[in-house]
């Protein structure tokens, strides 16, 4: 057995049997060995960025490690965006890269890049494998690291001659999944005492609580706590439940943002108080005692001071809160929240918001919705109604255009039983549109909706509001492809809707098509996303309409 064979066998031993990759000179031994492992499904993408996002989509949908493979040099550097995205959103992926033979490392050899050096700040950890005998052990450690504690990306760089070197050891059995730390009892009891006295409490949950959904629901119901889910936390709490207030932050709901400003106790679980959530940090929840539960000690009091820090596992903490519950009536607070909940944006009949609403209304509770980044993303986050966790895949921390489509490919392969739908903009879709070839190659039934407003809509909105309508370099309409023909060129079924009447039947034709299909909704370009908290402003300065935003200027 050589190093390359040992690598595949290690992945298989870890129950990893789907990988996303792209061959190249420095991984030819790996691809050669692949032919001996028929149980391994390799998905050939068309750009390594697609492989990294597909691995992320897989990981976000399942909670298990996603794996992507690239060759040395340009192949490896093309993973950088996906790795950074995974780092920001705590997604467990393992990237395997080839490198030039050991003797050539450091000589500026053909297709050489110092990928362990390059990815140091954007991975949890990375390895340069020096001997074939180390390879399975390091790979096993990488898989364990990716999913333990606060999950994240890990890179394993394997020189070409290490792939060819004889491996003479045993392939290690998978590491036991490490027990996640229980919160300290004293800390959580202090939190319970504070919460008992609350008049205007709220519970805020982020992506770190993704696997604590059941406990979070019990916690909230037992205490009668209103719940806010961040962009990364959508689906952890069912939107059907009357306690749910929506998403906080820059494009959050009126109810969520007003609740944060007025709360006297804020329990945050599995979130990191991103600036898109907090607005001006010195004014964030300024009246509240902040209880922060997080597995990553470095997140506690990093940006928002935690009066009661609780370090530990989200599910264990929520379970403790639920088991020691005091039902808080606080009728006045709940009445006030209901009043705010009734304030939401009504979208004009033909607009991006309208089209997205029509699409998300067709989703079942099991469907997985991915988005790209921009106006359509925020509209989808505001309008979609998730009842379960891991049904919503979006790029939060990094805001990666091009993320949505390959992520949907990853999620579609992870669970062929569910429908995988992606909503993208005309800008972001073109950043990874070449993955249409991947859909065709494997007949992956992803449903793509391109919301085409002929603009980089979010930048346009900012230029409109903060730069006196100087629309600098955001017009795409003169050079966008014909998306129907583009899909057709790859052999993918596509339909177009240019008004509300066409949309309804187009959605049916799109969703009911057997196999991959694309819907293009051509929408007017003048609409912005509201409510909005202007950058640098506090949540209480949220504006609800375009006119209000202009007045504030």
């Amino acid at each position, binding site marked *: 057995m050589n190093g390359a064979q040992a690598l595949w066998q290690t992945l298989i031993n870890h129950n990893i049997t789907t990988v996303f990759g792209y061959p190249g000179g420095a991984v030819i031994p790996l691809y050669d060995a692949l032919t001996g492992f028929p149980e391994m499904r390799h998905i050939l993408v068309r750009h390594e960025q697609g492989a990294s996002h597909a691995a992320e989509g897989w990981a976000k949908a399942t909670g298990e490690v996603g794996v992507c493979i690239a060759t040395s040099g340009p192949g490896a550097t093309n993973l950088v965006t996906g790795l950074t995205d995974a780092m920001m959103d705590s997604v467990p992926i393992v990237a395997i890269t080839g490198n030039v033979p050991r003797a050539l490392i450091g000589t500026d050899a053909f297709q050489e890049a110092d990928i362990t050096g390059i990815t140091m700040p954007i991975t*949890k950890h990375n390895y340069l494998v020096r001997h074939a005998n180390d390879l399975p052990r390091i790979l096993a*450690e990488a898989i364990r690291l990716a999913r333990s*504690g606060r999950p994240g990306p890990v890179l394993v760089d394997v020189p070409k001659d290490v792939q060819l070197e004889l491996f003479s050891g045993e392939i290690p059995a998978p590491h036991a999944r490490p027990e996640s730390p229980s919160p300290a009892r004293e800390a959580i009891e202090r939190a319970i005492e504070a919460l008992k006295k609350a008049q205007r409490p709220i519970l805020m949950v982020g992506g770190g609580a993704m696997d604590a959904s059941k406990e979070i629901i019990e916690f909230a119901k037992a205490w009668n706590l209103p719940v806010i889910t961040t962009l990364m936390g959508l689906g952890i709490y069912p939107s059907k439940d009357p306690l749910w207030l929506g998403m906080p932050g820059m494009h959050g709901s009126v109810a969520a943002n007003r609740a944060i400003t007025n709360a006297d106790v804020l329990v945050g679980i599995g979130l990191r108080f991103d600036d898109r959530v907090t607005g001006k940090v010195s004014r964030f929840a300024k009246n509240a005692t902040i209880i922060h539960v997080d597995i990553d000690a470095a997140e506690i009091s990093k940006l928002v001071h935690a009066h009661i820090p609780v370090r530990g596992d989200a599910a264990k903490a929520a379970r403790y809160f639920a088991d020691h519950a005091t039902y808080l009536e606080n009728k006045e607070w709940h009445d006030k929240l209901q009043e705010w909940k009734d304030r939401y944006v009504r979208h004009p009949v033909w607009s991006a918001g309208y089209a997205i609403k029509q699409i998300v209304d067709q989703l079942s509770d099991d469907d997985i919705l991915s988005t790209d980044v921009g106006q359509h993303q925020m509209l989808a986050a505001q309008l979609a109604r998730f009842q379960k966790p891991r049904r919503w895949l979006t790029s939060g921390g990094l805001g990666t255009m091009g993320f949505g489509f390959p992520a949907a490919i990853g999620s579609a392969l992870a669970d062929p039983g569910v429908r995988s739908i992606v909503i993208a903009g005309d800008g972001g879709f073109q950043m990874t549109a070449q993955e249409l070839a991947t859909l065709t190659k494997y007949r992956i039934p992803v449903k793509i909706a391109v919301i085409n407003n002929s603009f980089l809509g979010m930048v346009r909105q900012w230029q409109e509001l903060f730069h006196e309508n100087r629309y600098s370099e955001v017009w795409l309409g003169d050079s966008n492809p014909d998306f129907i023909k583009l899909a057709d060129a790859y052999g993918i079924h596509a339909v177009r809707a240019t008004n509300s009447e066409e949309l309804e039947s187009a959605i049916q034709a799109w969703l009911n098509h057997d196999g991959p299909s694309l819907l293009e909704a051509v929408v007017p370009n003048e609409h912005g996303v509201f409510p909005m908290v202007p950058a640098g402003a506090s949540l209480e300065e949220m504006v609800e309409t375009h006119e209000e935003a202009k007045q504030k200027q």
Partner: protein
Amino acid sequence: MSANLYGDTPSSPTKDHIISVIVRDEPRVLTRITSMFARRGFNIKSLSVGTTENPGVSRMTIVVGGDDNILQQAIRQLEKLIDVIKVIDHREEKFVDRELVLVKVTITPETRVEVRHIAEDFRARIVDVGRYALMFEVTGDEGKITAFIEQMRPFGIIETMRTGRVALSRGSNADIPTQVYTDGGSKSLEPVLGDVEI
């Protein structure tokens, strides 16, 4: 109420903090540590690295400039790095710290004796003797070394080289229990990782 890392309300004054970082002796560890500081905008005032009595384990003494929030963040971010076995915040216990400096001082027949007298007062050792210069080796805490350099300045300092500070906690306990890295001879990653909470 909010204390923000880079914000407008520093919660405590900026000062120097001394920490020790016990790390696995792996390639690139120094880069991982320093790039974390660089990326987050924390200031390294001094950094010394050396091997320890345990093969495969190195020890760094880092002087961090900043307020308490920055120190706390730096420690917690360091603790997340896989190669870091332990971070010791020396505010929490008594410690000894030392620095070594080489100082080359100009001498003339008139100043030669006086320079040597001052050096004796500081217990500085002469490590090189030339016709126009003497080189001294001084160890001590930061204050002593600074004082020595100030005393020598009027005679004419040609050049100096300071090592940066090194520190150890006082008392009979080791900063990390030896069982953390039991099989000292092995470069294996497993035993180290197995005992460190990730």
